[in-house]
């Protein structure tokens, strides 16, 4: 293998691992938007709280190991999702959508500032959960990178089966496409929306734990960039399409990494959002999105 080839292959591998985290965040985001028919602005904070619970308390403080920590992140973010549901959505049923939009912005600020007050304003260290690597020639693949991609595959496959085969999943898809028709077939729309939102948040929480473990740090304002990256990846893939979100996340990760190589690391976020803007200009429905009602 030539050195140049290995060099770029390495960039792609690292990009895929990072992209897998984006993908998981974007999938959660797509599930929430599909269930609620609404963009939420608290998602980044949900990711942050998942990272805080699983990455900091799970891995660093309680030393639960990565699997229990992922579970902790999932559960914590689920609960945060239920809280957001009660505070932001359930209180104003049938109101104008702007109300939800504004309340999610408000709650986002409360969660972020609250975490700074109660947790810390500093970056907190998260120790390595696994430090091994495989070497294929000169190519390095970290164990944690494989873990991240594995978690993405496991969760998206589970989600796929859940949506396609279970009663609740079927109801969730029905609600995402047409709430009126779903209600008429006897679906408890409100309840299904609550659960859809919680599932989406929980996926974001897991992504947060992975983020903390991969970069060895969690901090209270990490949600800002995380939330926008999730949004960018979801837009890339078609906003509410789950395969689209997965593909969008992975591509975004790889593009960012190649771009960082081309320019410098300061350009990382510029590249990410540049991609989003270009996608919106050229194909607003995203890579796998379709015009109209394509939802989860």
């Amino acid at each position, binding site marked *: 293998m030539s050195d140049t080839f290995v060099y770029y292959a390495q960039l792609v591998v690292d990009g895929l691992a990072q992209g897998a985290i984006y993908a998981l965040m974007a999938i959660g985001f797509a599930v929430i938007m599909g269930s609620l028919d609404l963009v939420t602005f608290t998602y980044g904070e949900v990711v942050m709280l998942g990272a805080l619970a699983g990455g900091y308390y799970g891995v660093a403080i309680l030393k639960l190991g990565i699997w229990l920590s992922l579970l902790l992140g999932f559960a914590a973010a689920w609960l945060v999702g239920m809280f957001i549901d009660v505070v932001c959505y359930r209180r104003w049923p049938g109101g104008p959508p702007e109300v939800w939009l504004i309340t999610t912005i408000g709650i986002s600020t409360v969660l972020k500032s609250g975490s700074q007050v109660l947790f810390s304003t500093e970056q907190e260290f998260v120790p390595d959960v696994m430090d091994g690597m495989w070497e294929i020639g000169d190519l390095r693949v970290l164990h944690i990178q494989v873990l991240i991609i594995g978690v993405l595959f496991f969760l998206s496959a589970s989600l796929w089966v859940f949506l396609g*085969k279970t009663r609740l999943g079927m109801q969730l898809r029905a609600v995402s496409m047409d709430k009126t028709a779903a209600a*008429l*077939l*006897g*679906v408890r729309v409100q309840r299904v929306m609550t659960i859809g939102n919680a599932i989406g948040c929980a996926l974001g929480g897991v992504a947060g734990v992975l983020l903390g473990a991969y970069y060895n740090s969690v901090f209270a304002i990490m949600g800002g960039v995380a939330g926008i990256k999730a949004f960018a990846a979801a837009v890339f893939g078609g906003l509410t399409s789950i395969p689209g979100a997965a593909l969008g996340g992975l591509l975004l990760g790889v593009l960012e990494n190649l771009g960082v190589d081309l320019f410098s690391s300061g350009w990382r976020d510029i590249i990410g959002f540049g991609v989003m803007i270009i996608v919106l200009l050229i194909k607003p429905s995203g890579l796998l999105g379709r015009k109209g009602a394509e939802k989860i």
Partner: protein
Amino acid sequence: MSEERILETRELSIHFGGLKAVDKVDMWVLRGHVHGIIGPNGAGKTTLFNALTGFLQPTGGRIFFKGVDITGFPSHRAAELGLCRSFQNIKLFKTMTAIENVRVGFHYRLRTTLLDAIFRTRRFREDERLTLERGRELLETMRLGQYADFKAAKLPYGTQRRLEIARALASDPELLLLDEPAAGMNPAETAELSACIRRISAGGRTIVVIEHDMRLIMEICDRITVLNQGLKICEGDAETVRHDPGVIQAYLGRSAG
């Protein structure tokens, strides 16, 4: 035929501000009947349906379904009791296939959990078999068998309407409300629809249908209620309604006699 009133309204009123969309309507539907609701545009037919299925809160009066007072029940409660409807504007799950649309209608009976689906347990296989077999049967009833794997949005208009009825049937309703099922259909499609409605009726379900296609109404209905400007102006079999001076006046503007 039984004389049980499966559906009954007592002095049902729905007002929008000063507009009396439905005004003190007393009507009932007998179990096993195909019951028509007709009237000129703006007579309050769809508004009446919306109140029956919990989409509108009535201003006054009560609604009874199988003797239970369901006034103001949310839609899903009415559906649980066995009341389902189709819409004037088609409300299918557009990007699902025809068979998937019908399977959503079955969601009540599904017991599969995520673990069942992953490990393909017996419960999962039974659910799959039930929904697929019964789903295909329903599609056949509505003459939709060949469209099972087509995306709903890709189907011709008349076919989409029949699919909507098939989906409603999946929830196994005792009373089916159809809102202008023949709207926009050509005569051949209407004839097919008429045959489908008769088959459903023969299967023991009660059907209430709003329709502008008079030939269809006269053909399939056992009893007909005529509304005009929110008021019930006539009720009876096709013959009675056809010759009622009030009905003729409502449709033609003045007495034909």
